[in-house]
């Protein structure tokens, strides 16, 4: 046994008291700050639920067609969505989808500007990299606890915890994409007297777009993988079905909801990947016949 050097109880108590104080003092501020998230989530969920089922399938299939211009992916997307409907998982799937889309949007809004800042400052990159490592390796349950304490059980803390989990890869890929832009092209840009803003918007972002898109794809998939965990704090959706399956030892419930999550993952992974490939082709990174 490792010898007990000092009693850790006061330390833990100090952390807990500190968090309590934080919530007592800033709790309302946190909630106000998160209200755009709540609003976005509600809007997306109500919007998706208001759509007739066939319209949603048509939209997703249409996106798949737009991204690939081939019949295979649209067929897969339509089949996956029909599977969700036929098995009675439609509403839960939409709740999960809304959660995932909100978390992905929130991640994009936060992570891309931070990634841009990282690419421009070596100091910031050195500071943030270990923080990102920590965010990615810390078990996600750990930041569920304070999130629930601040916001109470529900979907907003679930979205926030998901964002913390999904943001690091997008930040890293944004930073990487912007920094790996062909130096010859940048030099030509400087020679014409471009500003730093013009460098970012006219050269770096367009050329880094495929990499950034790969980051968005990652964020989407990581958000989806968080929904089961998030259901433990009241996020609802397909994850909650899985949780109930565990609680009631109902294999069928857990299995079907699990397959539903897989179906959603296939739809969003393949469609975002197809868009990413399309961007790459447009830049000539891969061969492409117009």
């Amino acid at each position, binding site marked *: 046994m490792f010898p007990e050097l000092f009693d850790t109880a006061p330390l833990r108590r100090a952390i807990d008291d500190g968090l309590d104080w934080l919530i007592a003092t800033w709790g309302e501020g946190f909630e106000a700050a998160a209200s755009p998230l709540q609003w976005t989530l509600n809007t997306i969920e109500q919007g998706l639920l208001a759509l007739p089922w066939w319209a949603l399938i048509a939209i997703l299939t249409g996106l798949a067609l737009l991204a690939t211009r081939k019949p295979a992916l649209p067929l897969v997307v339509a089949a996956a969505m029909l599977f969700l409907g036929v098995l009675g998982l439609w509403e839960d799937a939409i709740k999960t989808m809304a959660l995932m889309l909100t978390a992905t949007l929130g991640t994009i809004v936060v992570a891309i500007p931070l990634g841009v800042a990282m690419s421009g400052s070596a100091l910031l990159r050195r500071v943030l990299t270990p923080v990102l490592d920590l965010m990615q390796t810390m078990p996600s349950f750990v930041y569920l606890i304070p999130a629930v304490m601040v916001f109470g059980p529900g979907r907003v803390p679930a979205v926030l915890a998901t964002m913390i989990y999904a943001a690091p890869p997008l930040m890293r890929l944004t930073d990487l994409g912007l920094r790996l832009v062909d130096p010859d092209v940048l030099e*030509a*840009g400087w020679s*014409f*007297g*471009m500003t730093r803003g*013009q460098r970012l918007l006219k050269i770096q972002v367009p050329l880094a777009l495929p990499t950034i898109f790969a980051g968005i794809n990652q964020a989407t998939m990581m958000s989806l993988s968080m929904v089961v965990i998030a259901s433990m704090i009241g996020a609802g959706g397909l994850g909650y079905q899985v949780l109930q399956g565990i609680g009631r030892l109902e294999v069928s419930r857990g299995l079907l909801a699990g397959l539903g999550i897989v179906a959603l993952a296939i739809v969003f992974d393949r469609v975002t990947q197809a868009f990413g490939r399309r961007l790459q082709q*447009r830049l*000539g990174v891969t061969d492409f016949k117009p």
Partner: protein
Amino acid sequence: MSAVIDIREVTKIFGRSPERALALLRAGRGKQEIQAETGNVVGLDRVSLSIEAGEIYVVMGLSGSGKSTLIRHVNRLVDPTSGGIVVHGVDVMAMDAAGLRAYRRNTVSMVFQRFGLLPHRSVLDNVAFGLEVRGLGRAERETAARRWIETVGLAGYERSRPRQLSGGEQQRVGLARALAMDTPILLMDEAFSALDPLNRAQMQDELLALQRRLHKTILFITHDFDEALKLGTRIAVLRDGAVEQVGRPEEIVLRPATAHVAAFARHVGRARAVPLAAVMERGAFAPYPARLPATARCEDALALFAAHAWIGVDDADGAQVGRVGVGSVLEALAQPGSTEP
């Protein structure tokens, strides 16, 4: 004539402690010694050049001679360790960020060896890029871009992407992009070196034709002595970051200042370097049926000697001022050392 670009004692040292290396260099230490002692590389050592309005000034040197570093000092893509650059009487080193941007937007434009085109943009948008950076509206910059695309012979390719074009075509885009800026100074960094020989010769001819019309001040970097002789009004030969010789093409060929320059000169067709002005016999003669301008090269005269014993030489106004015969041309072309086995 006053200098448009005045490069004054420019020294560039690459590395972590350029000041220390500079002190050693000033103390007369050799480059290898400095590199061994400080880990710094001397890129340029007190290079002074004076480039005049309307000339094509060629800087010629092998790879590692510092020529690409030198040209980047003119628009400050590289800052010197010591020394100065004065363009149109203005000290480029004294410019602040905004002043430097304005200078790059309005005074100098550059063509790159590896093109530096934007792969996500069409040819039209690439050529318009510099004007876009300058802040011109879409209609205005596209009108200008279309005109230059036509000038460089790429009409019909406006909507193509750079990667759909051959190397020669891509460099035409790079040239059009620089010309569209309509700056008085054009910097060309090994602009034709990546092209195949046929394309290169064609681009050289087109550049000369354009220059007769545009009268820009062109600083042209190359490692190809033939190219230097063909294009250059004057040539500076650079070796290991120092200038070996500056002169008109025929001076470089006929009177090389160092063994290094002589080595280049030995392997080059002198017929291309020596202008008729250097070998003609001045005087009033009856007008000859075959005539060439004094700036024409001996190469041009050789073909005419098949049918004519004498060729009249005209000045810039077309008045005959002298003549050349087969003998004087052949004498000028006979290369010292060429009779050795």
